[in-house]
């Protein structure tokens, strides 16, 4: 309990952190919390766009995702998920510590959160490096090395093949014929009249695998940028905590950085099963 400020600011005296246009600390705090939630909503919509791209490609080309996801390491992903969850816990505890004016605990918890964040990025780095070496990158840079072994041999074993054979997909099997007479498909203009055999690619093979890695890097990349930003914010909070700025009377920055950090975690909670655990 080494706070530089009195833990108790009586209601009558103007609170030191109250800005002139607010009438009470409660009003100010609630405004800040609402503002933060609105900001988090925009973050969710920012990722929402990428989730949409994911959904579109996953729905239309499940075979790409089934084929390519084995190149991601399930165990590293799981470890990273656990790390982020723990960091979320330490963050929430940090907020609690600040609320209780327990400065030492606050610093420890913030430091632990930062450590977890760094650990997460470290593991991400290992994963990215592997992809880089194997040439498993997005669109233009996709140059798979032939030896590219699935990261989790375990998975491949399970399915009894390496790499898993691509199921021929039936994209667009949604049936909307109840609304529309389906137009016939295919470049019929070039076929001899009467010939309606669809032209099928000779060997069934998974094409456009780079799409998976494009989506993967876009999603995890944007997420990693957010982790990085979170770490900077956490560092700033820890610094201010070390200066003894926070106490039960004033802990808004800790709580707000906490909310932000939780959202970063929340997004990963979706990323992990969607990218690593396809099955």
């Amino acid at each position: 309990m080494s706070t530089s400020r009195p833990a108790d600011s009586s209601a009558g005296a103007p609170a030191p952190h109250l800005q002139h246009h607010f009438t009470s600390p409660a009003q100010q705090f609630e405004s800040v919390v609402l503002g933060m939630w609105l900001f988090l909503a925009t973050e969710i919509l920012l990722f929402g766009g990428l989730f949409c791209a994911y959904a579109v490609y996953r729905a239309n080309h499940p075979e790409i995702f089934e084929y390519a996801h084995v190149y991601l390491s399930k165990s590293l992903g799981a470890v990273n998920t656990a790390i982020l969850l723990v960091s979320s816990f330490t963050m929430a505890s940090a907020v609690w510590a600040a609320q209780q004016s327990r400065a030492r605990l606050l610093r420890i918890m913030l430091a632990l959160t930062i450590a977890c964040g760094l650990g997460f990025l470290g593991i991400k780095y290992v994963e990215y490096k592997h992809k880089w070496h194997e040439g498993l990158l997005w669109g233009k840079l996709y140059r798979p090395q032939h030896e590219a072994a699935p990261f989790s041999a375990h998975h491949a074993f399970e399915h009894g093949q390496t790499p898993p054979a691509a199921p021929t997909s039936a994209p667009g099997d949604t049936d909307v014929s109840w609304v529309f007479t389906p137009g016939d498909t295919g470049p019929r203009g070039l076929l001899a009249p009467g010939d309606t055999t669809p032209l099928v690619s000779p060997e069934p093979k998974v094409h456009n695998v780079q799409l998976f890695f494009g989506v993967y890097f876009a999603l995890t990349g944007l997420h990693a940028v957010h982790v990085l930003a979170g770490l900077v914010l956490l560092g700033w909070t820890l610094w201010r905590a070390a200066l003894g700025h926070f106490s039960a009377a004033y802990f808004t920055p800790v709580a707000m950085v906490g909310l932000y950090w939780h959202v970063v975690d929340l997004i990963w909670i979706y990323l992990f099963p969607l990218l690593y655990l396809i099955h």
Partner: protein
Amino acid sequence: MKAVVSTFPRSHVAAAEAGAAGDNYLTHAHGIRSWLFTIDHKRIGVMYLVSILAAFLLGGIFAILVRTELLTPGPTIVSADNYNRFFTLHGAIMVFLVIIPGIPAALGNFVLPIMLGAKDLAFPRLNLFSYHLWVLGALLAVLAIVTGSVDTGWTFYVPYATTTGMGGVVPVLLGAFVLGFSSIFTGLNFIVTIHKLRPPGMTWFRLPLFLWALYATAVIQILATPVLGVTVLLLIVERVLGLGIFQPGLGGDPVLYQHFFWFYSHPAVYIMILPAMGIVSEIVSVFSRKHIFGYHFIAFSSIAIALFGFFVWGHHMFVSGQSNLVTTIFSLLTYSVSIPSAVKVFNWLATMHGGSISLRTPMLYTLAFIFIFGIGGLTGLFLGALAANVHLHDTYFVVAHFHYVMMGGTLIAMIAGIHYWWPKMTGRMYSERLGQLSFAAVFLGFNLTFFPQFIMGSHGMPRRYYNYPPQFEFLHQLSTVGSYLMTVGFVLIAVYLLHSLFAGRRAPANPWGGATLEWHCASPPPAHNFDEPPPAGDPYDFNDLEYDARIGGYVYGTRPVAADSEPT
């Protein structure tokens, strides 16, 4: 709405009158830094206004270049590539730098807290930050012009935008990203302010309709703009690193890009029009000296437009290869937006019924808004009908439609708002006569510019055409002449407004007889708006306001409210 008799104390008004001579937000601090780093919402609003009008001038110059080039078919003054640059920059500047931030960030910033009875926005520093982001976005746009410019059209369709050789694409996209965040922060600030900073007595249904409109706008800004953010980010990554989500050459899907773009950009058109409708609701009521008709319908129609606006983005993609099923859904939903819009138009008319209508400059622009937006909105109905859209899509009919709603709607309403709040912002009155004269030039010039474009468009004149079939030459020339006339009108506005700053009559606190709270504080307002929150009443109750010829403005009189004048 229940009638609320204003309980405004006279002493308060007297204090406000006294404040006019003394300290106000303009004289409160001095020096350029006291402006650039101010956290006073009024100063930020004024800076926004100046910057946005400068951007409008730039966008207008490009427009005049475009129009001049179209005087004759074939080359007139510039090459095809430069023409393409001009309309792209014109569109991008007008949309991202002018019309989206226009009313909320400039006028909204200035009046929102005062109308609410608050001292400032909830997050003054964030407000300043979003202004700085706007400036950064504008600088990036300028950088784009310097580094080879852009020729993609403001829609940046893939794969054209990922393959064009012009070097300004990435800076312009970064600019759009930054401006998006500027817009998000403004909206966020408004929502929090309206939720949390309402003084006691300012209930939701005592909010002036302009604030309802800004609130609805802010909802769109929060929910739609992030998608623009991720879209331009992806586009940058596509272009620089070849990500491959949108580019067909890399297995991607260009139509997906269009979904991304329009998921933001359609709701964005309601970011543009809603605040304009808010201004119109204020002015129609004040200049008719009559309680707004159907307050609740107008308030809720703003929210309805904001929500429905999210369900119609696909109407920009009817011929792009969107599937028939989704196309049909979007066409149907498109019409849902026109209902609340119609409600507003009819309510404004009903407000004028039985009023006492004064044709001062703000009201003239407001009537012009109803006229022009009527045409613009009704032509939207043509575009929403599938079969008609197939013919009209990407023709000058669309160009005319969106200029009627954006330029004739939003921008005209913004000009109305500028004239309406000018005395409040600057403490000066402008010349009414010149105001009416320039109105005539703008109104006639506008219609002369854009009405012929409806005819051209329905006859199959495609947009973004440098060269065109000779049969359209006459209509194009009419249009160009109209744009020159309109320019004269705008230059005139700029001249007399600037002149009024130095030589205008001092403005009274309440020159028009408005009942919203901003007219309760002095012109210009003191630095902190109100010492204590003023009691809020019905914002459209004009019963207690009396004209005082000595000060040329309205004051709260002592005349008891006659029993028969009680609103129902």
